[in-house]
């Protein structure tokens, strides 16, 4: 497989792995939580490194996912105290964790290459650097298989808990009354989101992870009225957006992750404007058809 094809494939798989859980994130009105979780990855990685002393260890991903979960659970706990309003709880927890991470890095690992810049920005091309070869033939970037595993895990989780997720998302009170353990479902879902963000982070960087998780579902939400339709259109938008965005960034020689994030944003804006226009036209036509009131 050529390098460009492998990297493009990595982009597509990462986009799918992020966008599918993103459907429920958007429907639960938790979009900014993804931003919060993605910033908690840094302290998670630092603490993980503190324990393992190995930058390649898979435990780092688990540590980072746990830190992301800490943000989700912590802000939910702050919400439940009833002493805070609005979206403040998320904004309280993640800067504190991020600060702790930065301080840990500067005081303990000043001589080790754990660059906050690289952690925040991420790069598809760097993530695709390590190629997996089987019998002397390159079969694509190693990280592609990591993301494939994450995608499989996400799909399995969504398939198994689809009905429970659906009912807790749309009508949490009803869900609780029929005996669904909403707290458990929430925490499990948040862990899956956190794990996906963390894994995708290495491939895409913070900014593209948020874009991949939020923008395709948000765009699909504008276009659909039923959950299965929304999931299908999310998948289509994620794949085509990833391919087109990657190709455009490659063509314009722009930063890949940032270019793709902007491209996804432009798709959303275009669909939003188009659907507004369509609605406007429909109203006009309907208004034209009604007879003028008799005076």
């Amino acid at each position: 497989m050529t390098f460009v094809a492998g990297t493009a494939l990595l982009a597509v798989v990462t986009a799918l792995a992020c966008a599918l859980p993103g459907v429920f994130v958007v429907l639960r009105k938790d979009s900014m939580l993804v931003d919060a979780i993605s910033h908690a990855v840094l302290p998670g990685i630092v603490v993980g490194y503190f324990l393992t002393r190995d930058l390649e260890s898979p435990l780092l991903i688990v540590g980072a996912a746990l830190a992301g979960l800490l943000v989700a659970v912590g802000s939910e706990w702050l919400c439940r105290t009833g002493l805070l309003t609005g979206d403040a709880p998320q904004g309280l927890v993640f800067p504190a964790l991020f600060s702790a991470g930065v301080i840990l890095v500067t005081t303990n690992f000043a001589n080790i290459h754990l660059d906050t810049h690289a952690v925040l920005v991420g790069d598809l091309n760097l993530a695709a650097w390590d190629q997996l070869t089987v019998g002397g033939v390159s079969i694509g970037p190693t990280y592609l298989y990591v993301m494939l595993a994450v995608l499989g895990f996400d799909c399995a989780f969504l398939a198994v808990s689809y009905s429970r997720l659906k009912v807790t998302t749309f009508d949490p009170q009803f869900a609780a009354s029929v005996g669904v353990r909403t707290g458990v479902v929430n925490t499990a879902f948040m862990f899956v989101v956190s794990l996906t963000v963390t894994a995708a982070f290495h491939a895409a960087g913070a900014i593209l992870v948020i874009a991949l998780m939020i923008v395709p579902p948000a765009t699909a939400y504008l276009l659909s009225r039923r959950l299965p339709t929304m999931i299908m259109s999310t998948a289509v938008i994620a794949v085509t957006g990833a391919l087109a965005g990657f190709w455009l960034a490659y063509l314009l020689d722009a930063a890949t992750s940032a270019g793709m994030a902007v491209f996804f944003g432009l798709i959303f804006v275009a669909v939003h404007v188009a659907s507004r226009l369509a609605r406007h036209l429909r109203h006009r036509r309907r208004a034209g058809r009604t007879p003028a009131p008799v005076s």
Partner: protein
Amino acid sequence: MTVLEFFADHTYRMVLAGTVTIGFVAGALGSFAYLRKQSLISDVIAHAALPGTLVAFLAAVAVAGTGGRSMLVLITGAVLAGTIAVAFANHVARTSKVGIDTAMAVALTVFFGAGMLLLRIIANGEFPGKGGIQDYLFGNASVITTADFVTSLVVGMLALGLMVLFWKEFALRTFDPDQSTALGFRAGVIDTLMFTTIVIATVIGVKAVGLVLMVAFVVTPPAAARQWTRTLRGMVWLSAAFGAVGSGVGAWLSILLGTVPTGPLIVLTLFAIFLVSLLASPRRSIVVTVLSRRRARAALKRELTGEGANT
């Protein structure tokens, strides 16, 4: 280090004065973002400040030829970009079924992504005075110059002046938007003014503390202040005071400790103030809730057992 030695050093003085100003302004104006339940808008603003700053830098280089590093020019660009991002998020939330949280996330990624694209262009190109432009990403309090400090002081005072001038309108719009509209105040105008002040409060701190952490300056002091007070005036004053004191203590600690960066230490100081407020403020806090619940339970028990004894 004695206090005198501390204040004799120009850099230390600037770091302290700069961060205290940022903390004060962000704390005061953050109260309105908090009460409108849109605290995270400051995170969107901080991220949108990056492309705004960079476009202003490029424009200044193109027009003036050299040195596009005037703080005022960069702040103007950041304020404009921040205001556009806020307007975009609020517009999408109002005119489509997408929620405000999702609209904010979309605005954040688009603007920050554009900023990263511009950063790559600037890094690859030949521009006079481009060094240190990435300080805007992660913040560096030790590079606050006298001009920076004066600019953020003046711009911050401008935002606070707007708040004082439109105090009545802001308060009414925050607590009773329908009544405000019914009385004939233009919702759009007041919202634009209010969010512009919040944008200014966020933007003046990005260079010193970085765009990731700036959200803490806007969210944490009001959340702490809310636990101590029940009036808007009290909340704004207390929140500004928490912001200023937290920033001062954090900056002072970071100078004492030497190698520890200023922004993160201030954020942790603010977080500590918040935790103490949440746990133990005498009016609204976890301790008070637990105590009153226990008291109510005991009273109920007494009532029930007392009744049982009488009949």
